[in-house]
């Protein structure tokens, strides 16, 4: 756990994930109906939990010296997948949230990674221009 937190890139991604989620939530609260905002909140929570669990599973599966059994990694992977599917099923089937808000919330990590990629590209281009 401490090793993962020590990784600056991962820490930055996690912080930016939260920032993007909060920004989307704020925009939803101001401009969109409450069910849409609820969708953003629920989708964001699902995808952030997913990202966190994926990071833990990869770390335990790929770090030499801290390897867990393959069965444990596979079991965690399928549990995560089943949990995500179940939560999404209940959210959509019982119409608890707006589906488009949910998709927006589920895009938190994608938006963040795309923005970070664009930022890195801008840095490279800017450096090359100088």
């Amino acid at each position, binding site marked *: 756990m401490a090793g993962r937190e020590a990784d600056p890139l*991962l820490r930055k991604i996690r912080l930016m994930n939260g920032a993007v989620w909060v920004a989307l939530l704020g925009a939803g609260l101001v401009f969109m109906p409450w069910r849409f905002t609820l969708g953003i909140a629920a989708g964001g929570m699902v995808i952030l939990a997913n990202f966190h669990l994926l990071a833990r599973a990869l770390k335990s599966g790929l770090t*030499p010296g801290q390897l867990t059994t393959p069965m444990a990694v596979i079991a965690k992977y399928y549990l995560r997948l089943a949990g995500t599917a179940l939560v999404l099923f209940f959210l959509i089937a019982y119409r608890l949230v707006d589906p488009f808000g949910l998709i927006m919330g589920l895009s938190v*990590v994608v938006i963040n*990674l795309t923005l970070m990629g664009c930022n890195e590209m801008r840095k490279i281009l800017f450096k090359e221009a100088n």
Partner: protein
Amino acid sequence: MVRKVVVLTLIALLSMVAVAFAEANPQVAAAGLNVYFGVVLAAGLAIGIAALGTGIGQGIGLRGAVEGVARNPEASGKITVTMLIGLAMIESLAIYALVVSLILLYAYPMAAPIAKFVGLQ
């Protein structure tokens, strides 16, 4: 054997549904069933194709990462983080497809207008 029983049961159930609809109004029943079959087919194809692509993509990424860690165990941290980013991007596609399938099956926005159009409501 089990597969045959399941398929035959499904066919029988679908025939019963079709007959039940047809007794009410054959044209309306046909239109309603066509829409229903289309929606179910679209939902199944959506998640099926997305799962296929996601599986292939994640497999290729994971293979590269595992090879990298095996050759250079000290770089496992950086490789893991880079792969995490890739896997998160790939997996989000499958989650989008799952959401689209669930929307088609349970919260299709056009279900009510179509049902009204074909006279089921």
